[in-house]
């Protein structure tokens, strides 16, 4: 019962903060609202008893990626004067394009069927032991492939970050 209320409360907060990301004038405020949005999503993970996912979500998104965002925005020191001025045509075409996207989304949601859960929800599925077992047995190949992908990205980042290649 209490989880239902918590779910609605967290969802309300998540949507509100997400809207604030878009609507706030100051880019630094936007980033901070995005961090709060990530927190509410982590709260949803905790409600599903997926604590590992919640913790990793906080560490990776709020702890690392958003700090870098904040870093760049603070150093750029964006404000009204430095904002690039776009022409009216550009604004109008952007409005038309995003309006069309909205139409497509509404149309696809209208014709979508409601998904019925095929098997009962197992509250222990998100615990770290079960997650590890599933990752190393059932999903071993995708797991290893994604590790190779991360390695490639890491090597690429180091190569790009080097000043000169001897």
């Amino acid at each position, binding site marked *: 019962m209490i989880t239902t209320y918590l779910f609605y409360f967290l969802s309300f907060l998540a949507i509100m903060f997400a809207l604030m990301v878009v609507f706030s004038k100051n880019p*630094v405020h936007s980033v901070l609202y995005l*961090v709060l949005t990530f927190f509410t999503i982590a709260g949803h993970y905790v409600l599903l008893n997926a*604590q590992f996912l919640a*913790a990793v979500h*906080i*560490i990776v998104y*709020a*702890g690392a990626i958003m*700090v870098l965002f904040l870093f760049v925005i*603070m150093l750029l020191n964006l404000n009204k004067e430095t904002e690039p001025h776009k022409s009216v045509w550009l604004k109008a075409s952007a409005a038309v394009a995003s309006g069309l996207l909205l139409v497509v989304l509404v149309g696809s949601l209208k014709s979508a069927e409601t998904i019925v859960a095929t098997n009962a929800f197992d509250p222990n599925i998100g615990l770290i032991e079960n997650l590890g077992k599933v990752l190393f047995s059932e999903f071993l190949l995708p797991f290893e492939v994604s590790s190779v992908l991360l390695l490639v990205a890491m090597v690429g980042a180091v190569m790009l970050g080097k000043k000169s290649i001897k």
Partner: protein
Amino acid sequence: MTLSFLIYKIILVVIVFAVTLVVAMYSTYAERKVAAFLQDRIGPNRAGPFGILQPLADGIKMFMKEEVIPGASNKTLFIIGPSLVLLTACMTGVVIPWGSPLVIDGTVYPLQITDVNIGILYLFGVISLGVYGIMIGGWASNNKYSLLGAMRASSQMISYEVAMGLSIIALVMTTGTLSLGQIAEQQHGWHWNVFVQPLGFFIFIICAFAETNRAPFDLPECETELVGGYHTEYSSMKLGFFLFAEYINMFISSAVIATFYFGGYNMPFIERFVQDPNWLAILGVVFLFMKIVFFIFVFMWVRWTLPRFRYDQLMNLGLLFK
């Protein structure tokens, strides 16, 4: 979840919170005494016998000072900054096992607020959030020195988090668990993790120095280059929050080091003298605090012995030796 369980947890939370604040408060006094000892001075000795009321006097001074909020600053964020720093500093205490469980009338009372099965990740997450308070505070002050100090603090904390994460992963692989309660339990007797992972301990303690922004890594508040670093514009208790959070972080880091590598509440050979499990639990708390006090002393010892690094040396140390 019964009512008595809830009340017990609330009492435990209040005790841990109060003890954290009191230890941090007296760390400021201890720091000045240790500094005085290392520099062959006397240190604070006016407020009360041996100056033990000095932290109270400092606190009252901080509260009584005029509060200045710069006109060109972002007021909301200016207030949120120090609050966040103190909040994240206080949040880590909940997963630390302060002692083995007490058994009274057949009911088990664990001396740990919550033993989540992702304790280490929780700790790591809260540490990584500690950057925000400093960054927000530094940016909202609208001052070049503050911004530079905040940038230094955050880049230093992010880069040392990587090394800290790697040393923690080595620890997790040897212990096979992410729960702090189990890690402390496994180090019963002489099975302290420091004998298994001496290098990991060394890396972890260096990263702990960097994460708490203390000397020799206190470049974010380097007076000779940056006036006061990220808290240049702060006055009164807001400045006090920034300074106080450093001492709370130091206390929590010492508790984490003691739990991870030095057996937590365990002390070898104690079972030979005391058999009653409840007395053992209480003694365990005492042993843990002895270890914590020792590590707080190490933090101070290093601060007053080593000079500050240069900034590029700091980043090289953090990012190249891996």
